């Protein structure tokens, strides 16, 4: 196709947005609502992910060492722990520190403690793990290290967290899929009405020998144009609303004070990705919806 004729089709597509203003506005709002719902689902999923990661980071395995080991064994245990692929950090907690802490924790037992012939507390390594779902296997590996007496880990807490995370991931994924499918169906219907209103025009094009591509390009451009506009609007509304919510939580909501504000995704960190994703998704939904909707009318 000649460039001049292609440009003509692009102009016609953009012109159609304004010529069929009512239909364009209807399609724009349908796309906007769909993109807002999808965007909010993604942001909520990202927030849940950040919150879960923060909680998981607080998760630790305590590795207790036999009381009579020498420095070489302690070094060997440290190396073994430090080399484990699932460790995030390893902190040594000496028996003296542990004994002091225990005494401070229970001042009413001070007299009783004085009767003890020696410090009963063991040396301890506190290991935080990267992948909470493997906490059980990691603890088992730690048990096999020479000089290790006992390993404790919050298995129930870990498995509960893993369950919550996988359930939330499935729910967020399902919501996202439903949103995308619903959006495509609604957009398909909105654009189909717009295309139906111009079925006579399409018929004329086909009768005079227009190829399918020639008929579809203006509709494709029109759908993409509306999609990008809806994407940009969706980004703007999400940005304003989300930032207002973060501000609200910063001031009032106790639970966020517990997790810390770092538990929420900061919109500024994702703003350009979000704008690009919104515009691309909007353009794709608009264009694909248009292509599917025109298909039936192109067959003359």
């Amino acid at each position, binding site marked *: *196709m000649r460039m*001049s004729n292609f440009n*003509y089709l692009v102009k016609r597509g953009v012109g159609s947005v304004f010529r069929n203003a009512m239909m364009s506005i209807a399609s724009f709002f349908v796309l906007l609502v769909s993109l807002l719902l999808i965007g909010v689902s993604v942001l909520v999923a990202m927030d849940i992910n950040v919150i879960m990661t923060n909680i998981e980071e607080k998760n630790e395995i305590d590795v207790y060492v036999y009381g009579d080991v020498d420095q070489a064994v302690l070094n060997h245990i440290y190396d073994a722990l430090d080399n484990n692929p699932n460790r995030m950090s390893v902190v040594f907690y000496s028996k003296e520190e542990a004994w002091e802490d225990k005494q401070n924790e229970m001042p009413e037992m001070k007299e009783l403690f004085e009767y003890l012939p020696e410090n009963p507390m063991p040396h301890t390594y506190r290991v935080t793990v990267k992948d909470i779902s493997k906490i059980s296997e990691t603890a088992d590996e730690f048990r096999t290290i020479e000089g290790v007496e006992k390993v404790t880990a919050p298995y129930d807490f870990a498995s509960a967290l893993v369950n919550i995370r996988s359930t939330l991931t499935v729910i967020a994924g399902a919501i996202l899929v439903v949103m995308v499918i619903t959006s495509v169906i609604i957009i398909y219907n909105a654009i189909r009405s717009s295309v139906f209103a111009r079925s006579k025009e399409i018929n*004329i094009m*086909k*009768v*005079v*020998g227009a190829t399918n591509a*020639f008929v579809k390009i203006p509709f494709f451009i029109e759908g993409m144009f509306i999609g990008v506009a809806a994407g940009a609007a969706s980004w703007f509304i999400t940005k304003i609303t989300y930032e207002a919510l973060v501000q609200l939580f910063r001031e009032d909501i106790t639970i966020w004070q517990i997790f810390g504000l770092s538990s929420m995704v900061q919109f500024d960190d994702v703003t350009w990705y979000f704008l690009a994703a919104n515009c691309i998704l909007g353009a794709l939904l608009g264009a694909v919806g248009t292509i599917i909707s025109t298909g039936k009318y192109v067959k003359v």
Partner: protein
Amino acid sequence: MVELKNVDVHYVDGAKGGVDALNDVNIRVNDGEFVFIVGDSGAGKSTLLKLLTREIQPTSGRVFVNGYNLSKLRNRKLPYFRRSLGMIFQDFRLIPTLTVYENVAFVLRVIDKSKKYIRQRVPYVLDLVKLNDKAKAYPGQLSGGEQQRVAIARAFACDPKIIIADEPTGNIDPKLSYEIVELLQDINECGTTVIMVTHNHDLVKYFGGRIINLREGGIAFDGYIEGE
């Protein structure tokens, strides 16, 4: 050239068991001919036109138009075949959002002609139908006769080998009908084959020439009459 060989068209209709729209029809129209196709409602005129534009396929038999064997024509080749035809309809089928000039230019863009060619060709064909002064008007601002002249200009713009006119005078003033046929005759004199379907027997008697009369899906008459 148009050729129909032993063509049957049978429409499947669940309630009635089916309708025979055309029965063993044989027609040959040579290049440069002007043919009127007449017949009552339901005689098979519309079916015949749909066959010629490959909107439908025959149940049996073969249809050749402009060297294309329409029974074997692949769908992706269909647009290129249709570019060898010029179509004129009773309801004009102009694009209401385009001006007269743009409506004619549109078909040239469809067949991917250059800007330069379009700038030369459109005024030429508009001049032929005497509508150069209405080039900037929209179809809604024109009379029925003028709209049909735009449709003729559009059909002729691509320089087709055949023009197929489906009741082109059906929606216009009877007096203007004669002008429309004269215009088609002018185009025919340039070498373009014209096939015109009409109900208007007065027109046919007035102009004469080759007449094909369809009746109940068959050819009742195919011959020449003298004009008045």
